């Protein structure tokens, strides 16, 4: 079982991803709607973080930087509905392994990325 954390203020999206990943039975999924809470709660045992960029409390980029500072080896996949190339490149520089565009091409894309990273 891999530990997956989803940080997204959009409840519906977070719920949907959680449901999809849980269903496969391969993942232990934990969801946060508030990045500040997430930052406090996340432990070293998390395998992959699915992180939204646009959030009201704290931007995804900042969260990314903080997480990377704390856990440099943690795999972080960025998600955004408002994509600019600048952001893609920025996140890449700050150590994100992947960049998922909303809407996803398919939910399978998410699990495929996770698998790609963790194996």
């Amino acid at each position, binding site marked *: 079982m891999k530990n997956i954390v989803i940080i997204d203020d959009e409840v519906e999206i977070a719920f949907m991803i959680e449901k*999809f990943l849980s269903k496969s039975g391969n993942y232990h999924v934990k969801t946060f709607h508030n990045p500040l809470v997430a930052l406090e709660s996340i432990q070293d045992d998390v395998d992959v973080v699915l992180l939204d960029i646009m959030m009201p409390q704290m931007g995804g980029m900042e969260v990314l930087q903080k997480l990377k500072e704390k856990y440099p080896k943690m795999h972080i996949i960025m998600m955004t509905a408002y994509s600019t190339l*600048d952001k893609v490149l920025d996140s890449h520089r700050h150590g994100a392994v992947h960049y998922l565009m909303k809407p996803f091409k398919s939910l399978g894309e998410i699990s495929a990325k996770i698998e790609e990273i963790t194996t």
Partner: protein
Amino acid sequence: MSNYKRYTTLGAFSILLFFFIFMIQQRMYNSNVKMFLELEVLFEQSIYDALSLKHAELSSDLEHILEIERTISGAQYFTFDAKKQTLSHIKEFYSLSLDDLKYIEDKIKQSHNFSYPLKLEEGWYAVTFIKNLQHPDTFIVSFRKSQVLENIYTNRLKQLFILVLIVVILSYMLNLLLLRAKKLTSEKNKIALALQETNLYFDNAMIGFLVIDKNKKIIKANRFLCKEFGFSKEELIGKTTDILHISPLSYAKWCELITTKLKEGSVEYVRYKMKRKNGEEIYVEASGVPFDKEKDFLEGSTVWTMKDITQQVENENIIKEQEEYLQQRVVEEVQKNIERTKAYEEEKLRDVKFSAIGKLSAGITHEINTPLTYIKGNLEMMKLDMQDISDASLKQELTASCTNLQEGVNRIATIISSMQEMAQQSNETKEPVNIYDTLVTALILAHNRSKHICKIYLNNKEFTLNTSKTEFECICTLQKQRIEQVWIVIINNALDELQKKGTFQERRLRIDCFVKEQYVVVKFKDNGGGIDEEILAQIFEPFVSTKTHGGMGVGLSISKKILQEQDGIIEAYNEDGGAVFEVKLLKSAI
């Protein structure tokens, strides 16, 4: 005539005149004296005869006679015996001049009765010798004081004085006359000279002069005018002016024109077409004034100046034509400019529209993407869940509907994605950038996709995630992320095209980055079959796409725009069965 000459003439004339008058007077005086003396002789003789007759017997008694005589006439008498007495006695007695003596002597010799005038101290006397008939050798001599002689001689002086006076007056008058004549002559000369000068000017003036009388007959024409019209003076003078006009109708119109001009005030600079002797038509500029200013223009002679302005008129016409041409050109240019501006405005408006859409889409796409994400995700999960439905027909129906829904949602997602591409803007500043580095970055970003499609060769080396970013150096000054965006667009387009054909092994994308002259050239060459010729021409226009699904066809138009902002050029063409996108960027000066 000089004064000296004039006075000489005058002097000579005066002297001549004086002598002339003097001679006449002398003659008159002489005749008067002669007449008087003859009368005196007659008178004395008559006295003597009377006395002789009366006193014939007493004639010897001369003394007595003389006594009586003395009492009669108051004259002095004595008897002169020519044989005994010499005239010298008388001379002594009366102090006669030698001329007088000679005269008397001659007369005595001729034995005539005679008388002559003698001036003595007391006055003028008539001395008369009468032959004594009694004694032939003796003469009765009488001395009679004569008032008549006195008068004659006194008058003679007066007359002489008057004569001199007359001469003086005449001379003076003559002088005046001469002066006047001289003045007249000099004035006449002056006038003649002025006339000559005027004629010279008239004839040599560099403008045509024409003098015509009231019947329109040419009185005078100068050389210039003759030359202009090609006539000789003789041919013009005496003819009417219609010789200079094209036709009688033209002449009539000319007269009308002049009348109109006169009503306006003056006949100046009238332009009219006239005719030369050889029939050639010329433009003439004419001005006319009446010869006699008191007279009306049409009543008397008129003086005209005429100038051939054909060349000038032709030049003016050429200028006019040129001006018209220029005017037309200006209008055309303005029209063109208006059209151009209009086109530009339209383009700008379209640009503004796109920009507005872009700005709006930045917000809208995010808002739409969020629900789109979970609609899409949930549909996918629904479809998976449907696999558990036992009723086969229901399962099939629901799955079909779900697929339909998914297709629709996917289309929306594609449109939104394209709008996002358009909306992207960057405020990044220009900086020196290694183009090779940007290519590697773009390839890393695309790697996730490209690794399934084909191998990519960067400067003849196969690209991997380990490819060094600094192996080559081609520096340009530009916005780094913008140029990376362009690469991603081009690479993604190539991948899209390659994906359609062949196998992984067959597909190739070669990227070359090199310096050529002042440019850094980046060449993307695939073997995906190339671009359709129809599309090739407008490939950089917005909304042109070869993709049936996905892509609104804005990627390349945005790329082109970005490159223009970076002073770059992009070209697309087909080569060796594939498409080539060639980008040229201005190399930084090192």
